[in-house]
């Protein structure tokens, strides 16, 4: 069990990095506390796998250090870091039984057979593998194999952390639910530091207490799923979290308010004050599809729009509308009606965010967490 800390960590695959573009990981300081459930989320190429490999010891960072409970581990091999890893594709011994697969790490450590037996049965019980302990692993389904991979990490008491690298990729959607729920239960029970790498925001947010969202080698926001959703501190966070992502509308300031390509969005005093300091920056107004209100009735603050397209996804609908030159997506519940003729939008002030050169313009309470 360990607290994992990254100190002034940076990594370049180039031997003589000169430009910032030479870095796969830009300098960062970051802490994963002991016992936490964390996700490392980002698109492919953002550096999340590099970072995971640095923690596990497969990649030695070119700058800075990694510490486990205060001890620098840069030069310690993967085995000696006591990291358990679960990969995209289950890594197990097909010719062995489920039991022997689970017992394998303990037998390597020369643990007493009686202790091994107790531990294997305990873990098998939690993972619902008890009924198939004597079966050969090769005929099992992908989700069962992936549970064995996890189990091999859980049998060891000395594990510092379990790292998951896209563990549900090969699992069918209906089984993903079960396996994810299992993971969550395991975390609640074992209090092991877990870091879960994924590009899937649903997996990240349901698994993790806190998500580190990576973009171009940087952690752009570290926070609870809710914080990332409700208060994205960068336009990329707004775009990447949420399906569809945040509506991001380029805007300029005028006497009347925010100019959104032919449409004026009225600003209140507080919003105006917020934007004053960022006059020279490139400004963006952000609002999530979930928070845009669509109505057939006009009110004082509503903006006229035209409906372009509706996607009915059963449990919800995505409506695309044009507001001036901007295309805006709105997420509506199954039961909500879509106006057939005139349509109007409302942006509730509480959910309207402003970005200067892609970074959130903070009001007093929302403090950026770039660490």
């Amino acid at each position, binding site marked *: 069990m360990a607290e994992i800390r990254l100190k002034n960590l940076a990594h370049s695959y180039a031997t003589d990095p000169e430009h910032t573009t030479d870095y796969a990981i830009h300098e960062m300081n970051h802490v994963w506390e002991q016992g936490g459930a964390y996700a490392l989320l980002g*698109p*492919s*190429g953002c550096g999340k796998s590099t970072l995971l490999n640095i923690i596990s010891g497969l990649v030695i960072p070119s700058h800075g250090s990694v510490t486990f409970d205060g001890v620098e581990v840069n030069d310690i091999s993967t085995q000696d870091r006591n990291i358990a890893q679960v990969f995209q594709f289950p890594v197990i011994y097909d010719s062995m039984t489920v039991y022997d697969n689970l017992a394998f790490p303990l037998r390597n450590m020369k643990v007493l057979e009686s202790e091994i037996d107790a531990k294997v049965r305990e873990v098998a019980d939690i993972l619902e593998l008890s009924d198939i302990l004597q079966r050969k692993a090769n005929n099992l389904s*992908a989700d069962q194999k992936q549970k064995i991979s996890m189990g091999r990490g859980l049998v060891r008491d000395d594990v510092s952390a379990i790292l998951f690298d896209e563990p549900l990729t090969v699992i*069918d*959607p*209906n089984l993903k*639910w079960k396996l*994810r*729920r299992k993971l*969550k*239960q395991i975390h*609640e029970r074992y209090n092991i530091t877990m870091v879960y790498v994924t*590009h*899937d*925001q*649903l997996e990240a*947010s*349901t*698994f993790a207490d806190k998500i580190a969202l990576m973009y171009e080698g940087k952690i752009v926001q570290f926070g609870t*799923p*809710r914080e*990332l*959703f*409700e208060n994205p501190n960068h336009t990329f966070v707004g*775009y*990447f*979290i*949420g*399906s*569809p*992502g945040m509506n991001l509308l380029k805007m300029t300031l005028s006497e009347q308010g925010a100019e959104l390509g032919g449409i004026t969005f009225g600003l209140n005093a507080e919003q105006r004050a917020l934007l004053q300091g960022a006059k020279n920056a490139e400004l963006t107004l952000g609002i*999530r599809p*979930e928070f845009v209100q669509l109505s057939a009735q006009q009110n004082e603050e509503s903006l006229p729009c035209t*409906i*372009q*397209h*509706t*996607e*009915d*996804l*059963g*449990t*919800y609908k995505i409506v*695309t509308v044009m507001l001036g030159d901007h295309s805006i997506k709105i997420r509506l*519940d*199954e039961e909500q009606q*879509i106006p057939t003729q005139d349509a109007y939008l409302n942006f509730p002030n509480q959910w309207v965010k402003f970005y200067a050169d892609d970074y959130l313009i903070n009001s007093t309470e929302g403090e950026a967490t770039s660490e």
Partner: protein
Amino acid sequence: MSLVLENVNRSVDNTSYLKDINLSFEPGSFNVLLGRTLAGKTSLMRIIAGLDKVNSGKVIVDGVDVTEQSVQKRNISMVYQQFINYPNMNVYDNIASPLLLAGTPASEIKKRVQETAEMLRIEAFLKRYPLELSGGQQQRTAMARALVKDATILLFDEPLVNLDYKLREELRQELRELFKLRNSIAIYATTEPNEALALGGTTTLLHQGRVLQTGPAIEQYRYPINLDAADLYSEPPINILPGTISEQEVTFDEYASFPVAGHFKDVAVGAYRFGIRPSHMSLVPKNDDDIELAVQVEVAEISASETFLHVANKHFQLVLQLSGVHDYRTNTPVKIYLPPEKLFLFDFEGGIIKAPYPAREQGAQQHG
């Protein structure tokens, strides 16, 4: 161009992969095959392509039986899950390769490659090699190669599964637009109901090698033919509660009951399975006649804007999809509410008796 599959069966070593498949695809249509892994999606595509043989049945293109025709003779393009490109050729040559093979004049090739690359927004990378591209760009290259020739039939076998979900969202939208412009038959396989719903077109539900249902995805979501179909359209999976209907009452395991009303009125007395989608249950009653169930929280999965609350009592295990954040510790007792008018009714074989949606015409309504 039309494509018809007649009584197609395929098995290997006594394992049956496709059973009595009868399907017809309209000219210029966009079609989705929705099913789990091993449902038969890839098997079906390989037979359409001529890569695998049928054990019995026929493949008919434009009225001509092509069952025995080789893959080369069929004018088909296929895109796979894995990004398959020629690593030693740049993007331009990769896209041009099918046209070169077909002996297309050089000037025509140049024009078509350029057009297709622009359509897929990879025109800036034509000089690069596949390994210098991101996954999304590699898959766009593979798609461009499939789209550049005027194939009669375009097969897409889970083409987006290995991509970031954000990229998936974007490419999905592009694909829908791309297919609108073409006159070929496009068939797109996926395991994800949301993809079928978002792509539109005609969806065929495949389950264990059989066709369950064919039609618009949203219709299937509302009127699944059986429990398997309902389950394929539910993410998280649809909740099932066993119960009975008597003259006056509907009862779940003698645990909760409500008067027979609404769409249960003319149902025969007996034992049934009731289905309810996770998004239709709530923690507060929405109507007076909502059914209250006392349960305990197993785990609360909190996504950014929603909570998936897994609950159980000694009779059932259910999942609720709630909007907003609802943080509950394991074992917390809670009360949940089921609106009876949202219940699906299945018999014990899984056949559907009643769907909770009123008029069938409503399902077909779509904008844009």
